[in-house]
């Protein structure tokens, strides 16, 4: 064959070999440059956006900005009710979505019989992860607000966002569980574990790193959501805080805050961005910084937990 002949000729010719290697190295160089370029585009965009945000917003960032409610006067306006609202909503979301999502993931991966029904559920969950958030808002408006009569409360908001991130948590839980070698499960059975013991003592702790990654992704998405919360009736102007969860008198803990009206940081930010006065744009940038820091803090905690989990696993 001519092509075979050509290769053989090349192999017999040291100059041709060198040229061929040269050629491949060039391609490799080209790809490295392309990779760097792609990375730079992504990074520079981020650096540009974040530094723009900081340059505009930093002058406004002071203690008063944290501790003041919104105001029609841009100088007076703060984000107290917004960041408290965001934290409380995210707390409810985490409390609902994490246990439910992990439990559903474990069941689907470890217990559920593999049949068409499972396939059907799997396809649906994966699809749900891509459904626009406003759809969740409409569902929540119909179900939580009108049928369950939870009103326009932190509870409704938390459950809405929990529904929104559940698919992400379930899918990543399943993938993390699947990544655990089958041998671990068999070894656990071999020493007489029940299925639940095998899961609770081995498979789940080993996959916790991956599961936490899913939770990070989900929670980060939830913090930035606006549309479904506006649909269920999040407010824009609210100057009072929900009742504190920890009380000075018996029983010391109060859950009244979950019924409270609220606003969240992205809504506050959006409102300021769309105001005509330039001073409000500065406020919006400052609120953007806080939102960024809040997201980083929540993620940082999760990343730290993941690090602890990974470190504690010794096979």
């Amino acid at each position, binding site marked *: 064959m001519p092509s075979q002949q050509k290769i053989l000729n090349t192999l017999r010719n040291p100059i041709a070999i060198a040229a061929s290697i040269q050629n491949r190295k060039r391609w490799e160089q080209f790809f490295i440059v392309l990779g760097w370029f792609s990375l730079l585009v992504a990074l520079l965009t981020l650096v540009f956006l974040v530094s723009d945000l900081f340059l505009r917003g930093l002058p406004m960032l002071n203690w008063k900005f944290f501790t003041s409610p*919104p*105001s*029609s006067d841009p100088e007076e306006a703060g984000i107290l009710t917004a960041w408290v609202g965001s934290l409380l909503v995210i707390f*409810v979301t985490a*409390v*609902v979505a*994490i*246990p439910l999502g*992990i*439990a559903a993931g474990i069941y689907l991966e470890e217990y559920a019989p593999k049949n068409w029904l499972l396939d059907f559920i799997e396809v649906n969950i994966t699809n749900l992860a891509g459904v626009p958030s406003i759809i969740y808002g409409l569902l929540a408006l119909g179900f939580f607000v009108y049928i*369950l*009569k*939870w*009103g*326009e*409360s932190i*509870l409704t908001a938390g459950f809405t966002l929990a529904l929104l991130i559940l698919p992400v948590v379930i899918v990543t839980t399943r993938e993390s569980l699947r990544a655990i070698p089958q041998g671990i499960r068999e070894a656990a059975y071999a020493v007489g574990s029940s299925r639940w013991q095998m*899961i*609770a*003592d*081995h498979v*789940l*702790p080993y996959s*916790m790193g991956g599961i936490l990654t899913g939770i990070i992704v989900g929670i980060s998405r939830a913090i930035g959501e606006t549309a479904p919360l*506006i649909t269920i*009736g*999040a*407010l*824009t*102007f*609210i*100057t*009072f805080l929900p009742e504190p969860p920890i009380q000075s008198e018996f029983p010391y803990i109060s*859950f*009244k805050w*979950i*019924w*409270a*009206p609220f606003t969240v940081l992205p809504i506050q930010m959006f*409102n300021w*961005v*769309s*105001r*005509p*006065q*330039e001073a409000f*744009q500065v406020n919006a940038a400052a609120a953007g910084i806080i939102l960024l820091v809040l997201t980083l803090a929540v993620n940082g905690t999760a990343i730290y937990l993941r690090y602890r*989990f990974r470190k*504690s*696993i*010794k096979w």
Partner: protein
Amino acid sequence: MITSAKSYARLGVVAAVAALSGSLIPAAFSQGTPTIRIDGSSTVFPITEAIAEAFQKAEGGKVRVTVGVSGTGGGFKKFCRGETDISNASRPILAKEIADCRAAGITFIELPVAYDAITVVVNPQNNWARNLTVAELKNIWGPDSKINNWSQVREGFPNIPLKLFGPGADSGTYDYFTEAINGKAKVSRRDFTASEDDNVLVQGVSRDRGALGYFGFAYFMENRNRVRAVAIDNGKGPVQPSEQNVLNGTYQPLSRPIFIYVNAKSAQRPEVRRFVTYYLNNAPATVKKVKYVALPARAYRTILANFNRNRVGTVFGGKEAIGLTINELLKMQPQ
């Protein structure tokens, strides 16, 4: 294996119990402090926000006011389900919304609180279009318009491409402008840059010499160095958008009243009464501060009197009204 999932499982159970026990408290939990709930138009929001803020301070925290922004239509949906006490509206209540309110047994008091002048703007470098007639605007914005160059707008205008900017279809400004210029709400050409954020429109017009756009008066006032307003000629000569021309009724047909609607039952509550009274008494200063056009002081007195004698219903009969002057508006009676 060091960490056990059991401890996490326990944590999960605690969390679930906590969530459940919380949800056992009746949903109709009231805040204790009387709360006035307001929702609706983003156009009216800055006025209501400023008033609500000052009112809460004046009451020393004994009354709470919350304001949401779900748009005029979204606000009326909530209002007609009895979820809010007051609805901000940048247009009169529509027939469909009136029917919804009636079905839920809700009557309302309609109170105009300010005027807005929809402002047609061009780039500051545009030195030819000092004024435009309503017919020219209709030619530009009509649903079948093919105009894409200034030379097609009027004889003598230069050969410069025309770039159009306008609010998105969910906005009350869009509804009013299309009704006033094209004769029917929501009927407009589609090939223009639309944004719900008026600041985007300001930016667009300020960057293109051939640009033309429209938005609320407040956005023009805050950006007078970046865009220039076009005088509108409605057959009686060109009129600049200004407070004075809105008040004397000559800036037509792009002046529009904006409203609050008060639930008549809520209006019986003393804190709502105090709030509305406070609103109308302080409207002139507040409206000016947020760059809308305040009604004359006597108009607010008439409106407050209407509120005090509980005049329910709308004077518009469920339709958008174009080109109403303040005096005409105040003379109208609920049908």
